[in-house]
């Protein structure tokens, strides 16, 4: 039979099926993991709807009732109701109290608001007053400034007047100065004219004298030579006398630098009086210059030759001062 192909197919199929069934029956195919099945859903917090049963038909069924049980149940029910009522009352009282408290709070807040408003008013009034005062103060300052400006104007006017006066004064002084300078120029001119005249006269006199002497010299040549020698000697003598006279009066400044020199031009009158001392070259040390100048003035009148001819050589002398030696 197995050799028939259809039989074979049926046989194997049946075998497989039987094996399959055996396997299925013997093994446990249940999974390991627990699986949640929606048998009953428990949502917390929600009240389970109470199944409302339809009102039963009015069928009087007399049932024996236990009085004690009923009384207990009634009492229990009463107690529960009382409890509920008390709870209600308490709740109401609580609510009332809260309402009162809230009302008082509100009143208080209103009062505070009223107070704050008052204060705000007061501050506003104070501010207004301050603003008023400031305005008045500013007005006063403006007035003062106006006064000051007026005063400054007046002062400026006064100053202008003074300046004008000063200008007039300076002009007057300038005129005076000019006059003085003119006068001085005039006197100087006179002096130079006089000096020129003197010199011219002297020249004329000298020329005349020279003429006479020439005539006399022809007679005595030896006498002329002798006179020249004598005058030269006189000049030397008087030079030494003058230097000594000045040196005797010259108080040297201490610690003076002995390498310094200064130069003076001295004009003498015929009697030896010092007419003028002029510093022609300073030494750089004003103390030294002044000490020499003082000495020259103090030594006046200087020894000069009496002979007019020889004296003429001493009218203008130049003195060089060099502090080399100190005596006593």
């Amino acid at each position, binding site marked *: 039979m197995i050799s028939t192909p259809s039989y074979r197919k049926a046989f194997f199929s049946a075998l497989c099926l039987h094996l399959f069934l055996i396997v299925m029956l013997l093994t446990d195919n249940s999974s390991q993991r627990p699986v949640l099945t929606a048998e009953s859903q428990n949502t917390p917090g929600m009240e389970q709807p109470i199944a409302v049963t339809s009102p039963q038909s009015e069928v009087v069924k007399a049932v024996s009732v236990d009085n004690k049980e009923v009384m207990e149940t009634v009492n229990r029910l009463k107690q529960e109701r009382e409890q509920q009522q008390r709870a209600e009352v308490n709740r109401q009282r609580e609510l009332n109290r809260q309402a009162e408290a809230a009302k008082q709070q509100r009143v208080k807040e209103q009062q505070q608001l009223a107070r704050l408003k008052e204060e705000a008013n007061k501050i506003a009034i104070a501010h207004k007053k301050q603003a008023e005062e400031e305005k008045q103060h500013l007005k006063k300052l403006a007035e003062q400034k106006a006064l000051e400006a007026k005063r400054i104007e007046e002062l400026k006017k006064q100053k202008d007047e003074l300046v004008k006066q000063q200008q007039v004064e300076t002009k007057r002084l300038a005129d005076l100065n000019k006059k003085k300078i003119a006068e001085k120029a005039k006197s100087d001119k006179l002096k130079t004219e006089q000096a020129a005249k003197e010199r011219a006269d*002297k*020249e004329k006199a*000298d*020329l005349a004298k*020279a003429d006479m*002497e*020439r005539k006399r*010299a*022809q007679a005595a*040549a030896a006498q*002329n030579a002798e006179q*020249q020698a004598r005058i030269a000697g006189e*000049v030397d003598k008087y*030079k030494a006398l*003058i*230097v000594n006279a*000045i*040196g*005797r009066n*010259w*108080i*040297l*400044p*201490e*610690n003076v630098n002995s390498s310094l020199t200064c130069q003076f*031009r001295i004009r003498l009158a015929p009697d030896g009086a010092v007419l003028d*001392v002029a510093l022609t070259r300073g030494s750089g*040390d004003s*103390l030294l210059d*002044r*000490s*020499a*100048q*003082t*000495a020259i*003035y*103090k030594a006046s009148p200087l020894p000069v030759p009496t002979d007019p*001819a020889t004296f*003429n*050589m*001493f*009218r*203008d*002398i*130049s*003195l*060089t*001062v*060099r*502090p*080399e*030696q*100190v*005596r*006593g």
Partner: protein
Amino acid sequence: MINRIITLFFILLTQQVFALDLELTQGINSALPIAINTFGSDSAAQEAAQVIENDLTLSGQFRIVSGPQGANAQASVGTLRQLGADSVVTGHITKSGNNYEISFTLTDAVANGATLLTKTYQINANQLRPLAHHISDEIYQKLTGERGIFSTRIAYISVQRSQRGAHYSLEVADADGHNPQSLLVSSEPIMSPSWAPNGKNISYVSFEKKRAQIFTVSVETGQRRLITSFPGINGAPAWSPDGSQLAVVLSKSGMPKIYTVDVNNGSMKQLTFGDAIDTEPRYSPDGKSILFTSGRGGSPQIYRLSLADGQVGRVTFEGNYNARASYTPDMKNIVMLHRDDKQFNIGLQNASGGPIVSLTFSGRDESPSVAPNGRLVLYATHNNDKGVLGIVSLDGRIRMKLPARDGDIQEPAWSPYLG
């Protein structure tokens, strides 16, 4: 022919303007004659004029010419010139309340009354003497070209001896001896006052704790500081020119030796060594060396210590006793106490060596102190057995004594230029 030449020569001579050239090389060293015209007739004016007169006389370089006798009004410059004055000081004082306005004019009496100097001041009544000293400084500087010392001060020790014992006082007075102020009073000796270079402090030795201690005191506030207080001698303090060090004599190591003490941090350094007595140190004005008295040569002589290398050299070789030496400010001379044949006088020697010249002759002179202008020496001497102060000029020409005070005055010290 020759006559013609001669007359031509004469003509030429007379035509010249500068006929002769003269040369002056010799003058004299003499005091400048000056006259102080009265400043007025009230007491303030007389005091001012008197102070100026005294100051100029004290300098030794001026000779006061007195005005015409019995004249209360101011004499003219011409009159004073006739009397011999080369310069004239004229002044005015006006008083308003407690203040004075003082003006003065210095005129050159010889050169036609040219004004050399004129100034005006406004002061409080109690500044009259200081202002008069300042005017003297101005006049002195204008006429001699040097800075005046009339606003400087002197410090000295005054000793009052009585039956109960002695009473010592460290005093500071004006350079003319007036206006003394006491900085310290003690029944035990005070010695060796020395001015700091800034003129604000004085160092001295005090025996108030029955032993020697060196202090410095502030002249203005009187506050003092203890500098050294070692066992034995603490003596002869001398300031360095920069005011930071004091050279002192200490005998803590046996013999008196010279040390320096830093005034600010107190650090000390020994300067001289050896077995002889070294004392009386004095810094040179350039701060590079110290002069001191030492017995290392057998007798007290002056030696010089070079601060850079510590070398000591001997300075004096004449006489058998030379001590208390100090340089003049220009460092050209040394002034010292010099004994010659038992006579103690003030001696002067050139800094580079040479003979010692005696400036004073009383035989009882000591403690010389040189003025800051280097011209005068202040020293202690005796007058009829009383200790007084004297001043002598370096050239020996001027010699004078300061006004006497109560008690004996000794150990003077001249301040540096102040302010």
